[in-house]
């Protein structure tokens, strides 16, 4: 049975919110395991790939939601032509690979939700998180995940109550991502200025629906953990 995902709004640190008042993080937990995608998900990927044409990929940056993420990338010091926004990265991969090859249920669910809504998503192992998710700036001398690589000063990070768990639109902290043994997945989406609420909520709904449609028990090990 597919449960209705309960969407929670994460916290945003005051100094970050002062700079980007429209920046939000929304997240939901899904009782599901990753693994080999069922045929229905693979079929959906094929259908999505058929709808994706070269012309659409070229004009993606002029559509409101992908454009909003491009602008945010620029504003936080990322060149979106060097490190592409997730919707553009997917479009480029579609052109390179000629389709959307299935990887595992979680990656496929993220891809489907991102293609449908253009909203980037990130997944965590919910049991490895301490307290609610939020966004803040890194502190001087801080390390990713507490003991990972050093973070540069005032970097935008996704954090729980204890420590940073990932750099925004970049890598996750070691051991915080989804593993084959993960039972409860925490999906987070980032909303920036110009992205409507409905797109972000729909992205979370789609991913929950895909993950719960068939959890892929007994499947090949998979996940997005570093």
């Amino acid at each position, binding site marked *: 049975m597919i449960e209705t995902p309960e969407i929670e709004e994460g916290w945003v640190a005051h100094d970050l919110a002062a700079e980007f008042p429209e920046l939000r993080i929304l997240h939901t937990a899904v009782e599901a395991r990753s693994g080999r995608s069922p045929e229905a998900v693979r079929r959906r990927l094929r259908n999505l790939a058929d709808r994706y044409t070269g012309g659409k990929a070229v004009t993606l*940056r002029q559509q409101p939601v992908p454009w909003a993420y491009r602008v945010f990338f620029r504003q936080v010091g990322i*060149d979106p032509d060097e490190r592409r926004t997730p919707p553009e990265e997917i479009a480029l991969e579609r052109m390179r690979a000629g389709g959307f090859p299935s990887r595992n249920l979680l990656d496929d669910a993220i891809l489907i939700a991102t293609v449908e809504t253009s909203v980037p998503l990130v997944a965590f192992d919910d049991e490895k998180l301490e307290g609610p998710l939020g966004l803040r700036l890194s502190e001087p001398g801080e390390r990713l995940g507490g003991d990972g690589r050093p973070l540069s000063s005032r970097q935008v990070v996704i954090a729980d109550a204890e420590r940073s768990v990932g750099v925004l639109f970049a890598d996750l902290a070691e051991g915080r991502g989804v593993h084959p043994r993960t039972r409860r997945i925490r999906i987070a989406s980032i909303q920036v200025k110009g992205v409507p609420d409905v797109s972000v909520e729909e992205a979370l709904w789609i991913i929950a629906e895909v993950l719960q449609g068939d959890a892929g028990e007994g499947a090949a090990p998979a996940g997005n953990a570093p």
Partner: protein
Amino acid sequence: MAVIEQRPDLAVSARRVPIRPPVAPDEAAARRTLREQVAKLESELGALFCTAFPRTGFDWQVPSRGGPRVLSLVELEELRDQLADRLEHNRRVLGDRTYVEELNRRRIEEMVLEPERHKWMVIRNEDIGEPGCKSWHVRPRFGLLGMLLNWWRVRISSGCPLAGGRGRRP
């Protein structure tokens, strides 16, 4: 200066004008404005990118600043200026290209009308800003005979070669 000395009331008021503003400038507001300018420039760059496609040879990259992080006022100013420069440069390049493409389109018409005046000339799709491998090539009719008798025609290629070739011969 002489005038001020003659009018003491003006001299006093001139001395009272503060040289520095009494409060520090609001950097947050300045950063907000710069971010809006960055958004507008990004929008215009995106539109230009779509217009320029499928032409190649444009540089769209503006160096990243080690993000994601909150950029300082100076960094935002630099980013805004670099985006504006990139936009202006690419607009100029596109303007030059479209001018040449228009000349090439006109030349194709001339080639078709008077092929003997454009011997051996080749114009490809990329020369007129179009995708694909089509080309217009002025060649002699019947080979050597056409060259001797000045019989020329425009031969239009059928398109791109197959990616994998024609395959094995039967």
